[in-house]
């Protein structure tokens, strides 16, 4: 079934926080170009999928979300 819009928004928030914590994702809060943020986040999702050997779709699919929800260490996987 299509994912309920509310849950999708929640997942997106969760994923953003995860990528900020562990993949050095920095959302440009005041960026006028929403698309730019989105593509930046897609790149970071792809980077996380690559680290965990998931298919590098750049999409926040269920497998990627499940991996993000695993209990883990608080140290980033990637850092600038």
């Amino acid at each position, binding site marked *: 079934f299509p994912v309920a819009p509310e849950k999708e928004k929640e997942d997106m928030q969760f994923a953003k926080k995860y990528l900020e*914590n*562990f993949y050095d994702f920095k959302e440009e809060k005041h960026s006028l170009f929403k698309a730019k943020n989105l593509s930046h986040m897609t790149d970071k999702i792809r980077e996380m999928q690559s*680290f*965990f*050997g998931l298919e590098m779709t750049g999409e926040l699919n269920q497998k990627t979300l499940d*991996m993000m*929800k*695993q*209990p*883990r*260490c*608080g*140290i*980033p*996987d990637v*850092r600038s």
Partner: protein
Amino acid sequence: YSTFPHSPTWKKEDVTYRILNYTPDMLQADVEEAIARAFQLWSSVTPLRFTRVYGGQADIMISFAAGFHGDFYSFDGPGGTLAHAYPPGSGIGGDAHFDEDENWTKFTTYSGYNLFLVAAHELGHSLGLSHSNVFGALMYPIYMAVDTRNYQLHQDDIDGIQALYGPPKESDAPPTKAFPPQEPTEMVPAEAPTPMSPREEPTEMTPSRPPQRPDDCDPHLTFDAITTLRGETLFFKGSYVWRKSPYFSEIEHDTISSFWPSLISGFDAAYEVDKRDRVLFFKDDQYWAVSGYRIDSGFPKPIQNLGFPSSVRKIDAAVHDQSTKRTYFFVGNKYWSFNENTQSMERGYPRKIAADFQGIGHPIDAALQKNGYFYFFHGSSQYEVDIKRKKLIRIMKSNSWFNC
């Protein structure tokens, strides 16, 4: 493996640590033992020695805290982030923080996190390792509930830490002994022998040398379990796996945790149902199913699900006959026949092994079907049996498959 930017390390071999507080989830002695064992994992593969101090500033300060706890990385409540630690350096450098909102346990259970496992990972950071993307490595960022009784570092972890500190000195570093508590204690210099009152015998660490894998051609080699898997043959003993592949002449040496990190070790039995691409592992009265590296969800299950009476608490060996679609389970001097098509035990069982498998008059450690024959392993001997003709063909050494 990976290290932190500029690869910070401790510029000395004697590193101190101090446990600042305890989690109420465990006995203090269990916390201390978990931490000491975690340090011992790393000291056994490097020249580093770890000394516990009871006051003042130590290189590695260990503490439990929840939520905001004075650094920039607040904890997030139960689940999610379990702990974090800082690379070698002054001040907060090397310190390890554990989220008190988790349930910390001494053993690997489904209701909490094994403190030894998480501490060993975090201390890897305290020594300068960052995360590894090798599934099954200790420095993999995600927590894997594995059996820690004879936990072994993954080769990737050893390569990483030895890239920073090199291998242990030739002479075995004496196991790190905890100095007895004195109040107020400054760091006791390692050369100052401290008179131990009889009750304060130095606490011996877990053995400084992890148990070794037996040699392939050790004539006394025995196995816990053996199974085929997608055309290969896997031989199990303790946490070790010997992998024989038709594609390579060499025998590959692995550990169970390198294939299935969350599986226990020390299987009693294992067999493959080739048509389903499934291998089942048995330990005591439970069993697991895997497909390749993936562990099927919903396991472990009780072996009674297969139709065993409650009096059966473990099985010795199992083997699937691909031609008849029957799986034979061996328990003591009896065996059961399980119909994989109907998924049920056949009537008229158990039967005596000796009645149907000529020449096999004793309990079996492991069983295998290969090239149409059955192979039954008992201690360091292996019996090749032609099932159809119910004939014992020959007796060999258990490790005859290793080109000895």
